[in-house]
């Protein structure tokens, strides 16, 4: 039996810069029971078998919590009802079939290839504008200057959320993203904070959706909010709100890490940076390898509905299960020289976008954004060097990435 505190060490912020040695130790026991009764799944084979196991549920988000107000009507009737409604209509990453499938179908009908392709030109323009703004400086703060504003602008435009409101939901997005972090979601204060934030952003979305129904535009939210008709069922209002929130938060909190981790990796491998600069056609392979090597999302949690036998271990019904995607993508049993950044590797079946029915719906968009951002950065930043290695990290162990990435430059072309 391995060390049953390894996952707690993964969560420890001190290990944020380099969790990979811990993952290596976890993989010695592919499905490893932790002291708190959860099971961490860390090898490629075990993750692969579990993402297609029908007994693994995503409905593991602890119920929402609202603090007592002293008003009995509110504490005993209204808030409990509200809790139940919110729990029943969680965002689809916390839902199982068949509801998950219905909601995802709605999203995918709006998140069309045509829409994603259209954003290509917009991404290219935005990246250039953001880099232009750094002219005359000798340091770029990549997260603030590009990795964060780019995906935010893109998702806002796609959804049809006014970018002017960004300041307001920036903080909401950060707080809601902690719902993916085990320590925040199990902490009483953390849960209350997630709930309060969800309420606030729900009110915002409700108003916005009303507006979209009054004046539909050519954006995803208008499409999702469209009333049913011609045999097409309309998405229920509460599901619509939680779906819109999910898309907005996901657009805020994931691609930022892909771009930042990607640039960090290139700066640590200057030869690869140079090759990408000379040959931008390498970008798709470079991005896939980044998704394997330094993915934006390291793990997702699930719950076993039935007893599951996997890798010689029985996960009892009811157990929390942690699918450690970032470890599976570094599994030497699956990838030769797994800890080496090698864009030329073939057969790169990583879990950078998760897998199974919850596979990232925004993957094509994220690939476009990362590709254009990194190719342009390589081309336009003159003599980029890392300021701090390792950089400071954001708190999340699941949504893991630098808080900021200082890059010194000799100019911008």
């Amino acid at each position, binding site marked *: 039996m391995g060390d049953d505190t390894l996952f707690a060490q993964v969560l420890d912020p001190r290990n944020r810069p380099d969790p990979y040695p811990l993952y290596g130790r976890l993989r010695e026991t592919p499905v490893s029971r932790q002291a708190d009764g959860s099971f961490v799944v860390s090898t490629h084979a075990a993750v692969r078998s579990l993402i*297609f196991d*029908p007994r693994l549920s995503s409905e593991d988000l602890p119920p929402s919590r609202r603090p007592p107000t002293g008003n009995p009507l509110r504490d005993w009737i209204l808030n409990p009802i509200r809790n139940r409604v919110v729990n029943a209509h969680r965002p689809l990453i916390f839902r*199982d079939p068949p509801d998950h499938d219905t909601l995802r179908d709605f999203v995918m009908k709006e998140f069309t290839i045509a829409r994603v392709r259209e954003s290509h030109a917009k991404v290219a323009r935005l990246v250039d504008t953001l880099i232009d703004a750094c002219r005359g400086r000798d340091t770029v703060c990549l997260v603030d200057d590009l990795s964060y504003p780019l995906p935010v602008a893109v998702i806002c435009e796609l959804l049809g959320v006014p970018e002017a409101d960004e300041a307001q939901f920036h903080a909401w997005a950060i707080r809601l993203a902690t719902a993916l972090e085990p320590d925040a979601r199990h902490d009483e204060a953390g849960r209350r904070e997630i709930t309060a934030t969800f309420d606030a952003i729900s009110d915002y979305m409700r108003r916005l959706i009303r507006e979209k129904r009054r004046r539909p535009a050519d954006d995803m939210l208008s499409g999702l909010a469209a009333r049913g008709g011609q045999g097409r069922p309309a998405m229920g209002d509460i599901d619509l709100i939680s779906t819109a929130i999910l898309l907005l938060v996901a657009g805020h909190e994931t691609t930022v890490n892909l771009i930042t981790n990607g640039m960090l990796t290139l700066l640590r491998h200057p030869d690869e940076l140079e090759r990408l600069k000379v040959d931008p056609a390498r970008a798709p392979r470079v991005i896939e390898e980044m998704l394997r090597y330094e993915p934006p999302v390291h793990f997702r949690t699930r719950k076993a509905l039935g007893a599951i036998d996997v890798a010689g271990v029985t996960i009892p019904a009811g157990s929390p299960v942690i699918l450690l995607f970032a470890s599976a993508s570094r599994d030497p049993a699956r990838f030769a020289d797994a800890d080496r950044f090698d864009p030329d590797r073939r057969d790169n079946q990583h879990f950078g976008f998760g897998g199974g029915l919850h596979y990232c719906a925004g993957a094509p968009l994220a690939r476009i954004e990362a590709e254009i951002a990194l190719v342009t950065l390589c081309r336009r930043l003159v003599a980029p060097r890392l300021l701090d290695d390792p950089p400071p990290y954001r708190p999340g162990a699941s949504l893991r990435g630098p808080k900021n990435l200082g890059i010194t430059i000799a100019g911008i072309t």
Partner: protein
Amino acid sequence: MIGVQRPGIVVVGASLAGLRGAEALRDGGYDGPLTIVGDEPHRPYDRPPLSKHVLAGELAPEATELPQLRSLRARWRLGQPAVALDRERRVVRLADGATLPYETLLIATGARARTWPGEGADLAGIFTIRTVEDARSLRNALAQRPGRVLVVGAGLIGCEAASCCRDLGLDVTLVDPNPTPLARLLGTVIGGTLAGRMRDAGVDIRMNTKIHSFSGEKGGVRRAHLPGGATIATDLVIVALGATRETGWLAAAGLRADAGGLTCDAACRAMTLAGELDPAIYAAGDVARWPNPLTGNRPMTVEHWGNAVDQARHAAANMLARPSEQPPYGHLPAFWSSQFGLNIKLVGLTEGADALAVVQGARASQRFLAVYGRAGRSVAAVSFDQARWLPAYAEAVAAGSAFPPILGATDQPRIEWLEPGFPVPRRSTDQAAPTLEAAHG
């Protein structure tokens, strides 16, 4: 030319199994002469699209050519059916009289579509779907927008053809002697769900119905006659009555070969009439009848795409191995079908199943996964638009897990045991052993 060249390996059959078998021989290090014989003039092509995209006009017939996964350095003898096998002299005779000597032979001649056996077979407008030429002529005829299409046989090919014709906006009648479509393959409970889907799609389905004969005008088919005297008006008939194994050329070879297949042992080695193995002859794909451990080693053919690939590769590996190092072929049959907007997949063998349980989703929503049980074990699983979960159930079926397997799945209804409702087996007249009917994909 060198006067004396060793004869090397001959592959008879230039379809999926023949091609993948030949590739596997090269992959396995075989460097000698390799000859591939095919009765059709075409390079190997893929059949599943023929009853789907080709009929729909979405894919040109010639675009179905299979990609070659490696360089074969083979001598192709296409458009030349093998007509006889002389095991004594180790030669294959071709239709043009040529003889091909072999050291080792891989038989992958597949199957041919059963044609209309009754009266009216010579009328124009009656089609089968097996070869690329079949599909081409049928596609051309459908493009002329016949008023009424009659599909005879509600197996996989018949159902897919009916689906394509409905998508083309044609009036379709589907006739089958069983109570539901796919009844022999999936049972009447699941077949009934599909029947509902077909009715919603506007197919005139006539189950428990047999066609007696066809009659026509000016040489073209116009009417189907039922045994009681009733008729069905039609302008185009698609006969989808399954296939017979292509073994006619083996009639005098002294092998256990008949319309039901060529019997081989678990290692894919052909069996002689005396019940011995011919160490130089192997078989794979639709034509091979092999003892399947899933059915207590009763010999059977499996006419699925995946079996053609896997068995050909297995046979090729054994052909290159010493006699003592030729492992048995273990295979979990599986197929897929797309029809009426549904993705249907099956793993395992439903034959003889005595229980059925919907374990995820619901039949009412036409999105579900159901498991078949036999004597308390899980023997097969079928999915309607739920294929993502199938690998987990395939594992349970392969392991012979208790029925029903996988308790506590998401979207699991209250599990009810149902009778799968298989029709009473019809007496086979033309095959020595049971066969999975009209199955592919």
